[in-house]
């Protein structure tokens, strides 16, 4: 019975991760993360890169809740922990793309 439960858990885990990441992308957009960090979390002049390879969740959470810098903090009222976890699932789901050397337009830049 324990084996069956474990198998069931393994079977559903990737699907749940996908759902969570998809929901996380929606939250990422709804609460405005994309505005400074870009839709893919790539960062830019207004905000740091968040993905791929995001910070550990605890570090991200601590920053989001308590920052006093240019980025406004998000209280749990504005962004419940469950939603922040979904955002994190989205950021984790963003795969590392090709490197600059694999992109001809970037490879040839001085």
């Amino acid at each position, binding site marked *: 019975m324990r084996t069956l439960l474990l198998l069931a858990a393994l079977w559903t885990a990737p699907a749940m991760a996908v759902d969570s990441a998809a929901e996380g992308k929606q939250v990422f957009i709804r609460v*405005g993360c994309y505005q400074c960090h870009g839709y893919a979390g790539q960062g*830019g002049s207004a*905000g740091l890169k968040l993905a791929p390879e995001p910070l550990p969740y605890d570090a991200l959470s601590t920053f989001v809740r308590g920052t006093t810098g240019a980025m406004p903090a998000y209280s749990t009222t504005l962004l419940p922990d469950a939603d922040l976890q979904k955002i994190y699932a989205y950021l984790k789901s963003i795969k590392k793309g090709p490197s600059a050397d694999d992109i001809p337009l970037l490879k040839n830049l001085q």
Partner: protein
Amino acid sequence: MVDVIRSLDVKYVAANPGSSFRGLHESLLNYGGNTKPEFLTCMHEESSVAMAHGYAKATGKPMLFLAHSTVGLQHAAMALYNDWCDRVPVIGILGNIMDAAKRRPNIEWLHTAQDPAAMVRDFVKWDDQPASLQHFGESLVRGHKIATTPPMGPVILVADGDLQEMSLHGTAELKIPKASPTRPPQGDDAALAEAAKLLVGAVNPVLIVDRVVRTAEGMAQLVTLAETLGAPVVDQGGRMNFPTTHPLNHTDRAGGLIRGADVILTMEVTDVWGLINEYIDNEERAVSSKIKTGTKVISLGTGDLYLKSNYQDFQRYAPVDLSIAGDAETSLPALIAAVRSAIPQSQQGAIAQRRDKLAQAYTKARVAAREAAAIAWDARPIATARLAAELWAQIKNEDWVLVSGEGNLSRWPRRLWTFDKHYRHIGHAGGAGVGYGIAAAVGAAIACRDAGRFAVNIQTDGDLMYAPGALWTAVHHKIPLLSVMHNNRAYHQEVMHIQRMANWHNRGVDRAHIGTTITDPFIDYAGLAKSMGMWAEGPITDPAALGPALKRAIAVVKQGMPALLDVVCQPR
């Protein structure tokens, strides 16, 4: 009046037509033959001034604009403020009818003021209201001189309708005064020697430049100064100052360099306080010093030579250690000589070592920029880095000029492209006034056309909608200009501000889009351009479609016409 204008080698006059300057308008066409200056038909006075603004930065020469003294100048005012903040020479002539006994009923009363320039006097360098043709001639020549003397800025003349329209008698008595351009002032030799001594004695000197370079020689001298000192250069981008491919260009590393500096030289930087202090836009509006105790700050520039009180573009007072009044570009040869004579032979090795270390850091930063550009390469909306890279691939073999700002594009052009000549870009609006972009680009593109260069405009969506009639002007006058839109479907800076306020107030960002986004419906910018006869495509949402579309657009521009691509992009 036309003879005086021609004596100043003014090639263009930009205007939306207005009856208060009908006399001058007709004289330009028929007496002047509509050449030197040629009349450029504009669809808004803000566009007339912004066109003159862009043209002046691309050529170093003023373009004239004409406007009604009341209804025209009020439209033009915002663009004049940009000129003022950006220290750009633009000359305006306003139509006005002073003699109340001669005014046509109704309209000429509406189009006349006692003191028309009063409403812009706080942000023009000089103005006059000539009472005779001789007076007009002397004041226009004087105005040209004042506008083009650093710190440069806009000037205004009021041309009375009677002076424009009356028959001339006794013209033999009229004399056009000889133009006598003022040579820009060099900083005091002793002060430059003191600055050189501080820079040479520094372990970590940093050079910060904003509106310094006007000529190829100026850029070469700035490079010489940096190389002689082995000092990194941070280019704030108000003008094209320092090559992006030079290993001493460390613009991307500004924050760390300023924190680690022991001597900082700023050149033609308006906001020195903002450079040396950290200001965080949080609820406390927190301020802290960026520089170490004991860091010496030297400022060199013309900002202290002319400023006014009302508008606060002069920025917060910066308590620098050595303030040198003088035109930075003009002062460079003397400063270089002073630095060379202050460097002992024994220090050459240390300077060379610093140069090598900086070259390594530069290479690392360029590699990091390329890697950062790769991250969202295939993202939709199209990543701003992808837009910049695709555009660069198509223009890099042209003698190109970026005739727009690039700050909203996360500065990707300057991080990825090769900016190697003094004319490669013309900076930004100056006063952060929206509506400058498209018209300034058209004005600069005229200069590029005349110089055989290829004008590239990265056009933001919100800016285009202020005065899109500039597109028509570009088509009508056959001005080759490639406009590639950074269309993020928002006044995006304001989206972020509202988000910040909502979070501070713990209210959520659900409504931050209200009043800040340009959606529902989306604007068909390609359709807008096509309606004015311009070749256009878009909206382009697939990054793979961008390169081929750019090729098609560039082919149109190379045939001597403007083209616009609407590209739906990431916010920044």
